[in-house]
C-alpha cells in the first residue's frame, strides 16, 4: 500500500477542530480555581493514610476510579492502602479529606478488606499512569507522566493529565517535590480517550468512546493507530465505527498496516478489509504472509473477495495492480438523472470516482464522462448525448507505472481507464495512486519502536 499522507488537508482539519475546542469554556482544568486545587496522583502515592485522630495507619498505594464511561471525569471510588503486609480497600465514603501529602479517614476504625479488582474500575497509578492514551485535541498518542485529581461536587475526580517533562523530573526527584502539581502541559480529561487496562492484564474492559473521536480525519486516526501499542490499537479500532476504521486503514503506512492485520483477530481483520476500497485491500493483502492472506481472503464476502482476487492476480507495478475496480458503468440510453442516482448510491466510494464509463451492449468502452460534464448536463438528457470529445484515455492492464505517468502527462486528466484486449473497461487509475508510486521515499525515516 502506498503511503498516503495528505499533509495539506491534514494540517487544515485539526486547526479548525482545535479552534472549536478552544472556544469551549466548560473544561475543568481551564478554570483557575480548579488549577489551584489540583492534586497530583504521583505525589499522593506513598503518602501516609491517617485515621480521625491523626495517627498513621498505613500508606496510600493507589486510587481506584470508576471506568464505565458514564461520566466525563471519572470519580474516585476508593483507595488501596498498604497496612502492614496487606493491601486493604477503603471505600471513598470512609475518606474525610485528601490533602497534598496525606489522606485522613472519617473513622478511627478501619474495616480491613483485602483489595480485589472489580469490573468497571481501574487502578489509576498502576493501569493509567505511564500507559498510552490518546489526546484527541492534539491528535497524538501520549503517556501521562502525572494524573490530576480535584474535588468536584463532593467527589474526587480525575480531571486531567500532564505529559510534560517537568512532571517526570518531579517524580524522579525527592518526595517533597512530588506533591506540587506543576501543571505545565495539562490536558483536560474531556479531551482524552482512555483505554481499558492495557497490555497483558487479562481482563480487558473497554472504555467508552469519546464523541470527539468521530471528528478525526481518517489520516489522523491512521496516525494514532500507528503509534499505539497492540492492546490499545485493538481497542481504538473497536471504539470507532467500522467504516471509519476501514478508512483509517487505507491511510496507514504499509508496514504498520501489515503489522495490524497480522496481529489482529482474523475475523475482525477480514471485516475491516471487506470495507476497504478493493485496490487498497489488495495492496494490504499482498504484503501479508501466504497463509494469513489465504485465511483472510477466505473470510471475505464473495463479492469483495472476487474483486480483490482479480487485483491480487496482477503485478502490483502495472496498471492492473494499481487500478481500483470501483467504477460506475452506464449505457448510452440511461439518463443523466439515473446516473446521478447511481452516484448517490456509491457515496461511500465517491473519493475514488471522478468520472463514469459509458459502454456499448458488448461492454466495450464508448466514453469516459467526467463528473463535471454530468453536473452541467440537463437531468433529462441521455448519456449518449454526452459521448464525444475529449475521448477517454486508456491503458492496458500490463502498462508500467512510467507508461501510465506518461499518459497522465499527455492528457492532463485526473484518471485513466484500464481496458482489456477487447476494449472493455476493467478498472480505473487515479492520478493520486500514481503520485504515491512516483514519490521518493525520502524523509520517511522509520525505525522500529523501542519503547512503545
Amino acid at each position, binding site marked *: 500500500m502506498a503511503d498516503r499522507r495528505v499533509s495539506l488537508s491534514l494540517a487544515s482539519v485539526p486547526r479548525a477542530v482545535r479552534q472549536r475546542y478552544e472556544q469551549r469554556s466548560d473544561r475543568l482544568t481551564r478554570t483557575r480555581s480548579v488549577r489551584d486545587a489540583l492534586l497530583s496522583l504521583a505525589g499522593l502515592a506513598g503518602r501516609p493514610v491517617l485515621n480521625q485522630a491523626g495517627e498513621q495507619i498505613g500508606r496510600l498505594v493507589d486510587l481506584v476510579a470508576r471506568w464505565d464511561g458514564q461520566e466525563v471525569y471519572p470519580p474516585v471510588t476508593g483507595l488501596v492502602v498498604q497496612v502492614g503486609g496487606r493491601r486493604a480497600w477503603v471505600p471513598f465514603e470512609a475518606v474525610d479529606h485528601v490533602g497534598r501529602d496525606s489522606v485522613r479517614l472519617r473513622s478511627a476504625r478501619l474495616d480491613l478488606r483485602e483489595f480485589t479488582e472489580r469490573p468497571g474500575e481501574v487502578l489509576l497509578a498502576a493501569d493509567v499512569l505511564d500507559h498510552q492514551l490518546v489526546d484527541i485535541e492534539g491528535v497524538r498518542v501520549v503517556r501521562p507522566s502525572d494524573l490530576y485529581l480535584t474535588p468536584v461536587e463532593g467527589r474526587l475526580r480525575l480531571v486531567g493529565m500532564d505529559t510534560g517533562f517537568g512532571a*517526570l523530573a518531579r517524580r524522579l526527584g525527592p518526595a517533597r517535590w512530588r506533591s506540587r502539581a506543576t501543571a505545565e502541559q495539562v490536558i483536560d480529561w474531556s479531551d482524552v480517550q482512555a483505554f481499558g487496562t492495557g497490555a497483558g492484564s487479562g481482563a480487558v474492559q473497554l472504555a467508552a468512546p469519546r464523541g470527539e473521536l468521530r471528528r478525526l480525519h481518517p489520516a489522523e486516526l491512521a496516525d494514532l493507530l500507528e503509534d499505539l501499542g497492540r492492546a490499545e490499537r485493538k481497542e481504538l479500532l473497536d471504539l470507532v465505527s467500522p467504516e471509519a476504521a476501514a478508512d483509517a486503514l487505507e491511510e496507514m503506512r504499509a508496514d504498520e498496516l501489515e*503489522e495490524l492485520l497480522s496481529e489482529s483477530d482474523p475475523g475482525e481483520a477480514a471485516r475491516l478489509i471487506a470495507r476497504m476500497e478493493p485496490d487498497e485491500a489488495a495492496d494490504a493483502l499482498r504484503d501479508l504472509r501466504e497463509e494469513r492472506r489465504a485465511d483472510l481472503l477466505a473470510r471475505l464476502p464473495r463479492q469483495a473477495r472476487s474483486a480483490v482476487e482479480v487485483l491480487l492476480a496482477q503485478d502490483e507495478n502495472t496498471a492492473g495492480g494499481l487500478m481500483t475496480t470501483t467504477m460506475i458503468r452506464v449505457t448510452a440510453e440511461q439518463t443523466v438523472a439515473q446516473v446521478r442516482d447511481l452516484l448517490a448510491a456509491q457515496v461511500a466510494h465517491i473519493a475514488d470516482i471522478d468520472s463514469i464509463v459509458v459502454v456499448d451492449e458488448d461492454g466495450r468502452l464508448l466514453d469516459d464522462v467526467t463528473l463535471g460534464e454530468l453536473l452541467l448536463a440537463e437531468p433529462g438528457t441521455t448519456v449518449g448525448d454526452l459521448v464525444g470529445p475529449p475521448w477517454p484515455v486508456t491503458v492496458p492492464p500490463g502498462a508500467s507505472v512510467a507508461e501510465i505517468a506518461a499518459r497522465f502527462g499527455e492528457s492532463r486528466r485526473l484518471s485513466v481507464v484500464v481496458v482489456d484486449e477487447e476494449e472493455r473497461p476493467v478498472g480505473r487509475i487515479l492520478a493520486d495512486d500514481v503520485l504515491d*508510486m512516483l514519490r521518493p521515499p525520502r*524523509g520517511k525515516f522509520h525505525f522500529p519502536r523501542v519503547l512503545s
Partner: protein
Amino acid sequence: MTTPKPTAETAGAADQAADQVAAPPGRRRWWRILVIALAFAGPGLIAANAGNDAGGIATYASAGAQFGYRTLFVMLLVTVALVVVQEMCARLGAYTGEGLGSLIREQFSIRVTAFALLAFVIANLGLVVSEFAGIAAALNLVGVSRYVSIPIAAVAIWALVVFGSYRYAERLFLILSLAFLSYPVAAVLARPNVSEVVSQTVWPHLVPSRDFLLLAVALIGTTITPYMQFYIAGAVADKGIGPAEYQAERIDTIGGAIFADLISMFIIIATAAAIHVRAPLESAAQAAHALKPVAGRFAEQLFAFGLLGASALAAAVVPLSTAYAISEAAGAERSVGRRFREAPLFLGLFTGQIILGASVALIPGNLIQLLINAQLLNGIITPILLTYVLVLANRKRLLGDAANGPVYRVVATACVVVVAIMAAAALAATVLGWFGIS
C-alpha cells in the same frame, strides 16, 4: 556476520516504491526475494547476530589469541544464557505486543525505569565508541591514520542518516560485513586440533586469572548486549507476531542465538589456530592472520572490509536506537518516525552520541584494547537489564500462562545470577586495578 539491522525490512518496503518507477520487473523481483529472505530470517536471527559486530570480532579474536581454545567452554555457557534471555524477550514482545522500554515504564516505578534507561544509554555509548574504534582499526589496515578516518567517518555517517541516503549506504556496509562469513571456512582450513576444541568446549573449566575473568565478562557483554534485548522485543512486537505465531518465532529466536554463537566460536577457533604466541591481541593486523587460510595475502584487506562494514552499520544504528529510546521516554517520540529533521531532541541526541563516541575513539591508545574494554563495560551493565527482563518474564499478571514456569524460572535466574557475579567480580577487579592492586 552483521550488526543490527532494524531498518532492513522497512527500508525494503519503502525502497520498493522507489524501485518500482525505474526498475524493470525482473530486478524488482530480485529485491522482493531479498526482502522476503530477510523477513524469513526473522528478528531472532538478526538480533542475535548483532553480537558479532566490531567489538565482537575483536573480543572473540583476542580470546582465541590469548587463551587458545580455553574460552570455548565459557562461550558454551554464554550460548545457554543467550538462548534463555533472547527467548524471554521475544516472548515478552509476542505476548504483550510492546517493546522492552515500554514494558519497563508501565511495569516499574519511574525511578527504576530511569535507572534502566541510564544503564541502556551507557552501554550503548560504549558500543558507539567501539564502532568508531572498529572503523579506525579497519582503515588503519589500509594505511589511513585514525585521526583522519574517525572524523571523516563521523561526519559521513551523520550526514548519511540526517540527509536520508543512509539506506543505500546501509546495503553497502551490509555486503562488506558479509566478509566475516569466511571465518568458519578459515577455522576449518586452519586444521585446528579437533579433539582439543571439543574437549575445551564441553569440559567445564575456568582459568583462575584476572585477565581471563575480564575477557570472559567482555565475551558476555558482546554476546548478550542490552541492545539486542531491546531490539528483539521491539521487532517481534512490530512485526505483529502474536501468541499464535510464537512457536515459529521461538524457533527463529533460539536458532538465531545458536547460529550467532557458532560463528563466534569459529572466530575464536580460527584465531587460536592461526596465532601461536599466547598474548593479548595488539592490532587488527594480527587478528587478520586468522583469515589467511581463506584469503591468503589478501587476508588483511578482507578483514578490513568486514570490520569497516560491520562497524559503520552499527555506528549509525546504535545511536539511532538510543536516541529513539530517550525521545520516547521523554514523550517526544512522535515526531521521530515521520519527519526526521523536525525532531530536535532526537537529532540532538543522535548527534551528541556520534560526537562523544568519535571523540573517545580518538584518544590515543590501543584500538583493539579500547574495543574490548567497551565490551567489558557492556558486560558489567548486562546483568542490570537482564534482571528487568527476568522480573517481567516471571510476572503472571503481565504474561498470564506464558510467564516463566518454575523450572524455567530457576534456569533463567541461575543464568542472570552467574552473569551478575562475574560482572561484579570484573568490576571489582577493574576498580582495584586502578589503584594498582591486582
